[in-house]
C-alpha cells in the first residue's frame, strides 16, 4: 500500500486544489498542517527549494507546486480524470489554467492588497483578463464542461477566495454586473456537492483575511 502525505496550510487555495484531487481519486493520505511562520524541519527537508505548501510526499518522494502535483495525481491514480484524455483538449486545459494563474488570479490578488496607482494598474489588468475568461465560460457549467476539470481546480482561487477578499478590503473587481458568466460559474463551483466538502469555512477565511489586512501579514 502506498504512503501519501500532504503538507499544507488550511487557508491555502493551492493546498485545497490538491486535497480535492486526492479526494476525487479516493486516495487515503495523511494531512500535515504546516505553520508557515515556523516551518518544521521535516517540511524543509522535503522542500528546501521553494519552502512553500503544498508538498505531496508519495512513498517518500516529494512533489511540489500545485499544478505539477495535480498532473502527478492524475497520472498515478485511477478514478475520475482531472485532465481530458485527448492531447489537444489537454493542451487547451493547460493553456487556460496558465491564463487563469498568470493573468487573472495574480492581478486580482495584487489589486486587493495594493493602493493608488499600483492598484489601478492591477485592476485594469485583471478586468482585461476577466473579460476573456467571461467569454470562455459562456454557455458552460464548468470550464471542464459538465464536470469540473483542471481549469476549475486552478480557478478555485477566483471562485472562493477572491470574493471573500474583495468583501474584506471593500474593493470589488469581480462582480455579478460586470462578469455574470464568471459569477454564475463561481456559484456553481462553490455549491457543487463535491467541491463544497473541499473548501475551508467561509467565516474562518474571512476572519483570517481581516487579520491579515490589519496586521499586514498573511500568516
Amino acid at each position, binding site marked *: 500500500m502506498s504512503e501519501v502525505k500532504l503538507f499544507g496550510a488550511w487557508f491555502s487555495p493551492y493546498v485545497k486544489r490538491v486535497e480535492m484531487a486526492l479526494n476525487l481519486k479516493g486516495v487515503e493520505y495523511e494531512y500535515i498542517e504546516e505553520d508557515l511562520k515556523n516551518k518544521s524541519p521535516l517540511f524543509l527537508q522535503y522542500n528546501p527549494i521553494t519552502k512553500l505548501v503544498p508538498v505531496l510526499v508519495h512513498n517518500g518522494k516529494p*512533489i511540489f*507546486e500545485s499544478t*505539477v502535483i495535480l498532473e502527478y495525481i492524475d497520472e498515478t491514480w485511477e478514478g475520475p480524470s482531472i485532465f481530458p484524455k485527448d492531447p*489537444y483538449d489537454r493542451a487547451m486545459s*493547460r493553456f487556460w489554467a*496558465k491564463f487563469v494563474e498568470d493573468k487573472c488570479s495574480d492581478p486580482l490578488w495584487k489589486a486587493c492588497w495594493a493602493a493608488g496607482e499600483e492598484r489601478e494598474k492591477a485592476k485594469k489588468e485583471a478586468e482585461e483578463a476577466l473579460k*476573456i475568461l467571461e467569454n470562455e465560460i459562456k454557455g458552460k457549467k464548468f470550464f471542464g464542461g459538465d464536470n469540473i476539470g483542471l481549469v476549475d481546480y486552478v480557478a478555485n482561487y477566483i471562485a472562493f477566495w477572491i470574493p471573500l477578499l474583495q468583501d474584506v478590503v471593500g474593493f470589488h473587481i469581480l462582480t455579478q454586473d460586470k462578469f455574470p458568466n464568471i459569477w454564475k460559474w463561481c456559484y456553481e463551483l462553490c455549491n457543487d456537492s463535491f467541491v463544497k466538502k473541499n473548501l475551508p469555512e467561509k467565516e474562518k477565511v474571512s476572519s483570517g483575511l481581516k487579520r491579515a489586512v490589519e496586521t499586514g501579514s498573511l500568516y
Partner: protein
Amino acid sequence: MAKVQVIGAWFSPFVKRVEISLKMKGVEYEYIEVDLINKPPLVLHHNPIHQKVPILIHDGKTILESAVILEYIDEVWEGPNILPKDPYQRARSRFWANFIDQKCVPATRKALWCRGEEQEKAIKEAREALKILECEVKDKKYFGGDQIDYVDIIGSFLAYWMRLFDEVAGLHLFTYEELPSLCKWADELCDNKYVKQHLPDKDRFVDRVRGHSKTTRSV
C-alpha cells in the same frame, strides 16, 4: 497546406523550443516567419489573446504557449521522450522547467535590464536562482541525463540567449567561476545536434539586442 505549421520569429527562444522538440521527434513542418512589430492577421487570428509566438498548428488546430506545445508534441508523436515516462520524474521535470521559466528567466531579465536598487535586488535573486539550478545539474551532462529532455529544452533560453545578454550587458552572471556545472551544461546543450541548428546567429542576434536596447529595456 502542411499538416504541421509553426508560426515564429527567428530570434525567439520560445519558438526555438518548439522547433527543437519537433526536430527530436522527426516531425516535418512548415515554418512561417512573422514580423512581431507589425503583427500579421495570421498571428491575431490564431492567438487573439496573447498575440505572441510560437503558434503550433496541427491538422487545423492551434496550440499556444511553448511549454504547453512541448507537452502536446510529446503526447502526439512517437520518438525520443521529451518528458520522462515515470510520473515522479515527469513531476520533477515539470517543476524544474517551471523554476527556470518563473524564477531564473524573470530574475536574470530584470538583472540585465533594470538599473540602480532594482538591478541590485534582481542580481541577487538571479544569482540565488542560478545557484539552485547549478546544484540540480551538477555532474550531469544534461538535466535529462545522457539525452536532452523537457528541462534542457526549456532551459535553452538560459544556455544561449541569457548568456548572450549577459555578455552584451557585461554583468557576468554566468561565469565558470561561480557556476561551473551550469556553464558546462550550457556549452553541451548549445552543441547538441537537435539544439545547435536552431540557435540564431550570434552576431545577428547581438546586433538586434544592441539596437533594441537603445529604444527599449524590453527583450
